[in-house]
């Protein structure tokens, strides 16, 4: 069984938002909404601040509260890679999952259903990388199978210090940031 993850190198990332733009065109995300976004976290004071730039999105959690709270089964974990998806036809737009997600990764699409990052499963099944990963000019983003010890992502997580977001929420997020 594959376990898909994303590993993002914050040292290389410049926060250019190409990932956000690519997601928008690939997935036809409507104006005013985005499935991924850039966070800039500043610590310390001038002239010695520290800055971490992160490309963020749904963490495709292994313990996903959005799935547990969905009354219709629209939010579900897909058999392939443990990707968390929303079946638009089943979604009633109740927003329970929006409240449950600690990452604010979900939004109500103007057509009435909940929308979010899919890890571009439609591309992955064709052997392509997710759109955000494939365009990144700094090559800071990596996508792959954590179960495969030879994969890029496994090797990077082996070799480099990393963290995930809000581990205290207990959702077991699967987007990792190399520091």
């Amino acid at each position, binding site marked *: 069984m594959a376990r898909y993850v994303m590993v993002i190198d914050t040292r290389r990332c410049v926060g250019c938002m*190409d990932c956000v*733009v690519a997601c928008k065109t690939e997935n036809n995300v409507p104006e005013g909404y985005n499935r991924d976004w850039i966070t800039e976290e500043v610590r310390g004071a001038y002239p010695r601040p*520290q800055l971490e730039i992160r490309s963020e999105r749904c963490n495709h959690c292994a313990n996903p509260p959005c799935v547990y709270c969905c009354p219709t089964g629209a939010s579900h974990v897909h058999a392939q890679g443990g990707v968390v998806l929303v079946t638009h036809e089943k979604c009633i737009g109740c927003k329970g999952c929006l409240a449950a997600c600690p990452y604010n990764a979900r939004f109500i699409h103007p057509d009435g259903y909940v929308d979010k990052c899919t890890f571009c499963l439609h591309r992955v099944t064709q052997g392509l990388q997710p759109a955000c990963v494939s365009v990144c000019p700094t*090559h800071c983003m990596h996508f792959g199978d954590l179960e495969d010890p030879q994969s890029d992502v496994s090797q990077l997580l082996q070799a480099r210090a990393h963290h995930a977001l809000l581990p205290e929420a207990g959702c077991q997020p699967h987007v990792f940031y190399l520091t």
Partner: protein
Amino acid sequence: MPALSRRRFLKISAATVLAAGVASRVTRTFAAAAGAGAGTSGVHRIPTFCDLCFWKCGAIASVRDGRLWKIEGNPLDPLCRGRLCPRGTGGIGAYSDPDRLRTPLIRTRERGEEKWREATWDEALDYIAERMQRIKAAHGPESLALFSHGLGGTFLKHTFKAFGSPNIAAPSFAQCRGPRDVGFRLTFGEEVGSPERTDIENAQCLVLIGSHLGENMHNTQVQEFATAIGRGASLIVVDPRFSVAASKAKFYLPIKPGTDLALLLAWMHVIVTEKLYDADYVAKYGYGFEQFAASLVPSTPEWAYPQTGIDPETIRATAREMARYRPATLVHPGRHVNWNGDDAQRSRAIALLNALLGSWGREGGFYTPASMDVPDYPYPDYPKPAKPKVDNPDHRYPFAHEALTTGIRDATLTGQPYPIKGWLVYATNLLQSLPNQAETIKAIQQLDLLVVIDVIPSEIAGWADVVLPESIYLERHDELNVELFREPFVALRQPVIASPHDQKPNWWIARKLAEKLGLGAFYPWQDIEEYLAYRVKEAGLDFAVLKQNGLIRGPRQPLYFATGAPAAFGTPSGKIEFYSPQLEKAGFDPVPKYVPPVAGPPGAFRLLFGRAPVHSFSRTQSNRILSDMMRENAVWVNAGVARRLGLKSGDRVCLKNQDGVVSNRIAVKATERIRPDCVYLVHGFGHTSRGLRHAFGKGAGDAQLITRYKTDALMGGTAMNVNFVTLEPAEAV
């Protein structure tokens, strides 16, 4: 100045062989030839090259069921290596922008009122041609000037030269990279070019002085920058703002704005006095080193400390760091460098520092670029203008080797050395790019004709007598891109989809205008494809392959002196001029000398501006995809200063400059990422053109606040970081 060019053109046959090889590998990748996308079902992938900025990355547009879907990088393209920047990826937003110009317009009210009537192309071009002829009859053809930015202006320049005017300029010189090019020419006899010949990917130590790579999204540079960071190259960043690049630096130097030359001199002082420079390289290629070294004696780190705010130990440590990795230490020349008025000399100091480190012509420094040999189309000879260029009378700025936009503006205002009565403005928003908008508007009022050709209703279009709507890059052919680069190649821009309204490509406009002016003989070709196919064939290349793949690459040439690139310098001495007799003869400092920057009124902040990765100049704010990434700019204010002023992030203020000019309302970004003595804006916002319905009034424009500028005495560049603002509560103004 002698112009020895190190451009090395490739032999045609070699390029052809390689092209054939490349073609056979990729033919299957691209399903459709150009133009096959629209109106047919399925996904068609059509190669072209991008126009969201001037980098001209190879792109592949996907058209799905007749509609534009997405644009990706062309993997064959050595500039983008298959990955576009966010603007390129968001290029389809330029196509679908509802604020685009749709049809030719002729002014019906006073200039600047933005009132027009729709016109046919014939009517609009007749109007322009008639007025051009009238100006020619009264003043001569030289009294018409063309402002043109980018490759798209090629054919308009041709029409202008055929008409007999030598006055063609772009803000990219006097308002952008000019001082850098002059500083490097004076030192190495050559420029760094565009794309810059910086070997960032092989640098062991990279020094950025005010250059904010990553926010400034020049694709190849950013990719190489990330590669260098990824393998742990040492990075030194000098900037009053803690830029994205600064956050990745080993050394961040929070310099007092406008004092970079003092730091450069102190660095060179350390490298020379501690004998850390590349002595063999200097001895072999250098001229006037002894006089140069002697002039550096007083420029100690202790002298530079109070000027720059950088302590002597940091100056020494960073100088030694650079020397440690030489010659693979690259002191980046930057791009937009019109800052303080000392810009050509500061750029020369950057060139000299690189020369000390021996990085010019060396791996990890500056490589030697090459381009393909694609012969020009055989046009008739242009008429010889009766008058010299208007922009730089009596060579007032002796080292200006390109035309000065602001010189043309001066001539328009004063009528000296001769009157300028018509402007044709292509793809450059002069009201946002030239300093002091009032001067530009006053100059416009002296004109008998102002024509603007653009894709969107920019601010300058608001003042035009005639506005001509151009097709965007995805809808048109253009001149070939024959780039001088790390790897030679030729690239084709070709239509992906039809223009949605009555827009026309620049080549069609230029050709039609020439016909109306009775200059049809200068356009022996009927159609652009005929022209392009001719040039490609003359180069010994296959046009069908170019259409199929979007570009054809040539064989790589030696990049470094050590691997066979010629170590020749186009200076009068034929050497790297540490001491410049040219400058001395013209009455300037033969070795750069520091002059403290202009000081502002007490309590005011120096206004700095720069780039965001998702916008280009003032031309992408109405692109709905890119606007979704960044809808407006914010004014960066040091967090401590903001606290003192009682401001927090998100509060609205107006910026008021030293001359009383007040900006639009703008949000505060209170941040630990900037010095307390300056504020920072991303350029290109605060649109005042009512035609830009979506971008109108969002954020504030630096251009409005840049009422003062300091002219570089060597080359006429207009330094713009000499304006100061206070923050006023938005309610008070």
